[in-house]
């Protein structure tokens, strides 16, 4: 009886150990490496932890963190909407694809960072510019993956549904998009990580708030522990975003994972 109850507890402990083990080791290594050193640029983790609490649990949360997350969310959501809508249109329409594909490759290859000065002139120095920077980089993985996903839908599937007179919006909603969703989700995953990077970069130009601005400000003001704490916060935001993505992916693609498990036997 006892053993049976213990097993899930042990299992959970093991999962936790695996998840937290490496970070804990890295933290320990960092602490040991910085223990005796007086280096101003590499403070020990305890100092960074103090700075973390002091810096981010206060007005900076509403002044810098929330605006940053807002821009990130707006940029990423906009990229997803544009990417999926345009991608579906391009993927299902042959002539549109032939017309646009070379140009899309061209625009995809332009690094968003070099667009910042241009966007600053066109859209001003506010949030619109920053969201545009995020979209200009994030939209491509979603768009191109949607095009590929929609185009690659199994012909047996489309023809079968057509013979049952499932057409137009209905076919899009119940056949094409679900079939393309594994690839679309892979694009979204890329979009999220690119979005986080561009959020930081966009805040380094013409800014006065945001995580990216604050980290550069700390670096310039020689507030090194605070700078590290900002970097740690960015990492944590990344982990949180990946976690949210994981939940969403399991919901959207549960049929797909189930299918693959069956296929694997």
């Amino acid at each position, binding site marked *: 009886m006892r053993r049976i109850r213990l097993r899930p507890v042990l299992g959970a402990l093991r999962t936790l150990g695996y998840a937290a083990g490496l970070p804990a080791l890295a933290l320990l290594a960092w602490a040991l490496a910085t223990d005796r050193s007086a280096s*101003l*640029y590499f403070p020990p983790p305890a100092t960074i932890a103090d700075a973390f609490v002091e810096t981010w649990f206060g007005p900076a949360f509403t002044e810098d963190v929330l605006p940053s997350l807002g821009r990130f969310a707006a940029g990423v959501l906009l990229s997803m909407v544009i990417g999926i809508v345009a991608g579906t249109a391009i993927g299902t329409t042959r002539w549109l694809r032939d017309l646009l594909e070379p140009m899309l490759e061209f625009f995809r290859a332009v690094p968003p960072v070099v667009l910042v000065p241009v966007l*600053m*002139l066109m859209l001003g120095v506010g949030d619109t510019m920053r969201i545009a920077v995020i979209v200009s980089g994030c939209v491509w993985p979603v768009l191109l993956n949607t095009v590929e996903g929609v185009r690659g839908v199994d012909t047996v599937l489309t023809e079968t549904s057509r013979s049952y007179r499932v057409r137009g919006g209905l076919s899009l909603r119940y056949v094409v998009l679900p079939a393309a969703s594994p690839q679309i989700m892979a694009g979204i995953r890329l979009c999220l990580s690119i979005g986080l990077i561009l959020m930081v970069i966009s805040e380094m130009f013409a800014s*006065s708030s945001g995580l990216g601005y604050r980290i550069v400000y700390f670096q*310039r003001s020689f507030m090194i522990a605070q700078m590290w704490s900002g970097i740690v916060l960015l990492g944590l935001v990344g982990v949180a975003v990946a976690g949210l993505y994981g939940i969403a992916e399991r919901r959207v693609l549960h049929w797909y994972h189930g299918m693959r498990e069956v296929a694997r036997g």
Partner: protein
Amino acid sequence: MSRRRRGVLAAGAALLALGLAACTADAQDPPAETGEDGNRAVTIGALSISETAPLWAAVDAGVFAEHGLDVTVQPIQGGAQAMPALINGEVDLTIGQPFGVLRATEQGLPVGIIAGYAESYAEGDDVNSVVAGADTDITRPADLAGAKVAVNSLGAAGDLTIRAAVEQDGGDPDAIEFVEVAFPDAAAQLEAGNIDAAWVPEPFVSMIVGAGGTRVVDPYQAVIPGLPTLVVQATTQTVEQDPELVAAVREALADAFTWAEENDDAVRQTLVDNLELPEEAAANLPLPHFTTTVDQEVIQALADLAVEHEYFQEAPDVDAILVE
């Protein structure tokens, strides 16, 4: 002092520095090197801006060599980026803003000011100014309250003195909306109407005023007349262990500035060579006042202002920062 004797002295100083370096286990100490002519090798980190012109020119003309110094001018990206290089000993000295030194010491970095370099003008047109766009109604400092004002980097002497100037004029400094815009981008942003005013140095002041902009206030002059724009910085380690170097650099730099005043053409030629300025622009560019002296009261006033406007939590010890 004969040339030979100076060489011997310099070599002696270098040896002493080497000995001290060997005594301290700290690997961060910059090793003193002597060049082939027996001169002490010194690396000075300096921004690639027009203010560096007299340094480039005087090094080329051999003014520093006369003082037993073999100077290499190392281009740096910005004051904050130069600080690690200074502390690691990659450069022996840096030329940067005095506010950066105050900020660094406030954060516990061991640096000090060993000499002045350039200062703003106490009267007449200053070296930098807040200029408003042509289609704004901003004419005086108080009008900047509620306006979008660009500075090249926030949390430094620029926005601090602008805040103080607005307050002096009866405006609310907290109502200024600051944004960071690089100096070369400011004119285009003003023209596009994305910002209302910008704090810029020459030649951008003339450019913007020429395009219909209004010179609102010269914030340095209005708040702390004669505020140094650049000073020579060294680590406290260098100051304590190598007073000969500090003294030699001061003397050489003072000579360099005297020489530069008499050789304006050579100074302006370095602007063409190093910054690729057109010759006409180089000839007409207003330069600041170059001097090695630093007025302690002025630096103290800057520190007090920073505390008053809550840029610093506690007042920096200006006496300790200014090396005797």
